[in-house]
């Protein structure tokens, strides 16, 4: 069942086509990733999806309801974590959660029950009375996610949630998200420019210049746009010359790109003596992205010149 259906969505800023006639669907319970460089149209799409700005054309349907005329019902189904924290730094964690819950009409007993649930889920008991301004980056992000889930949404939208975070905090954010998916079967809509994050998704849409260039599972993308890689350990360049293909030195090993796993298996059977210590891996999402868009993404999400 599709929980999000977007058809022919358009958003123009003068001559710039931020979102240029895109259509896609997201299934209930799916971990969906929107991958693209900065300015690809990811955040604009999210912004329209959340009702923050109008589209210039197309339609958005969430859980069977069009945003047009059902904005409030749709908004109750969405929980959004923005790239930058939207918590009120001078206020306590409990206050931040309470005032957010209030926007959804959650008060009194219902609120207390919800707070208890969130405190347990996000391990917040030690943090509730502390001002947000005194929390670490990781703790703050945890509260950001808890705040987005304060009204039990069906879809969690993560708009570049780990940009600018240190690796440990990123790891902690993802462990929470994966736990939520496992325990609540929640639909997660992620926008990111981190390839490794997109690689964990059930489905990836690659967006560039406001257009969708690819829409498939990570495996399908890898199989379609990249080959497999065989990495040889302990074999010399001279020995590998018999393969009749150029190999790339990677540290102490050599790497050979083949069309697919079947070709790799063929080589193993044909040259068993070369395969003393080796590994066969799929291409990476970076390779997929490069092949699809002709671009690579830098650490900040900007397009990287090659």
């Amino acid at each position: 069942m599709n929980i999000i259906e977007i058809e022919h969505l358009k958003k123009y800023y003068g001559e710039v086509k931020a979102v240029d006639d895109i259509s896609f669907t997201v299934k209930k319970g799916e971990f969906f990733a929107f991958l693209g460089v900065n300015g690809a149209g990811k955040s604009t799409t999210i912004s329209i999806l959340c009702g923050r700005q109008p589209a210039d054309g197309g339609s958005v349907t969430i859980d069977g309801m069009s945003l047009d005329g059902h904005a409030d019902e749709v908004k109750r189904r969405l929980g959004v974590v923005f790239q930058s924290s939207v918590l009120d730094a001078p206020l306590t964690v409990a206050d931040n959660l309470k005032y957010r819950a209030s926007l959804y009409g959650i008060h009194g007993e219902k609120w207390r029950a919800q707070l208890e649930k969130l405190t347990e889920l996000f391990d917040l008991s030690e943090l509730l009375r502390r001002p947000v301004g005194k929390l670490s980056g990781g703790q703050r992000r945890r509260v950001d996610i808890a705040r987005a889930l304060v009204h039990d949404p069906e879809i969690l939208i993560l708009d570049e949630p780990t940009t600018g975070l240190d690796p440990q905090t990123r790891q902690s954010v993802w462990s929470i998200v994966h736990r939520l998916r496992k325990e609540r079967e929640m639909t997660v809509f992620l926008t990111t420019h981190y390839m490794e994050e997109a690689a964990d998704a059930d489905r990836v849409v690659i967006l560039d210049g406001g257009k969708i260039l690819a829409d498939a599972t990570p495996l399908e993308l890898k199989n379609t746009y990249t080959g497999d890689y065989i990495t040889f350990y302990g074999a010399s360049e001279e020995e590998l010359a018999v393969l009749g293909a150029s190999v790339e030195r990677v540290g102490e090993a050599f790497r050979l790109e083949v069309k697919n796993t079947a070709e790799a298996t063929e080589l193993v059977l044909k040259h068993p003596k070369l395969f003393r210590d080796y590994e066969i891996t799929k291409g990476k999402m970076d390779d997929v992205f490069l092949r699809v868009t002709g671009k690579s993404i830098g650490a900040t999400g900007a397009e990287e010149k090659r």
Partner: protein
Amino acid sequence: MTLKDLIVRNCKLYFKDKGLFFSSLIAPIILFFLFVAFLGGVYKDSLLSVFEGVEIESRLVNGFAGGWLMSSLLAVSAVSIAFTANCVMVQDKMTDRYADFCVSPVKHYQLALGYYIATALVTLLVCSVALVVGYIYLAIVGWYLTFTDVVLTILDTVLLVLFGTSLSSIVCKFLKSQGGITAVEVIVSAAYGFLCGAYMPIASLADAIGKTLSFLPGTYGTSLLHEHFMGGAIDEICSGLAGGDVYAQRTREGFDCVISFFDNAVPEWACYLIISITVVLLIGLYILLVASPWKKRSKKVHSS
């Protein structure tokens, strides 16, 4: 309930943000130090020069000058504190917080009301503290207020708070950057005291400036406060004098207790009418500003 929580959130943000809280007190603090440094002395000398040869007890002079300080302080605070309190709204817009509100089902009018009422409450609270401190100060240096004066000073303060809140809500609606906030804060802190006649009596300024300032509604609110804080002292000074009424009227005109619009003294009821109508008009304008973009957006959103 949602509105109540929005109001509490906005009030808490103002009081917990020390920078915001103290910057709102800059104008009143400037005025207080100006008063202590020289303005107090200037007003006392001015008063004594008007009544040259008349023996006026120091308690009466102090009560008069204290009344000027308190009325000016409240007139400036009601506007400058409102502007700073409304910075919560601007800061929400500068960050993604306002956008975050918009992805929830909360209505735009609830957000706008939340900011407006919180600003009014914060300003009223701080002004009420100033008012109480002012009464205590006057009770010590020289109390010449009647019960009616006390009631009217409270009414004047409420009206000026509503005026400041409405004016700042409209101005802050257009601010979207820290630079904008700082510029407005500086202008309000430095200039508003002069514009409303809180630092210097308008009567003592050049005629053209006085006429120009008489077009500003805040001036009439300040004048009401001057009258209700200083009127009792002026009447007391003039009570035993021959032609006391004439002296009292001249003193009132000289110290802005009575304000003139192109040489015509504006009666007290007219001052109330001007400031009340201004508040209503400003609130109406704010409602229009809040409602218009929202209506446009809801018509346009998600059209196929």
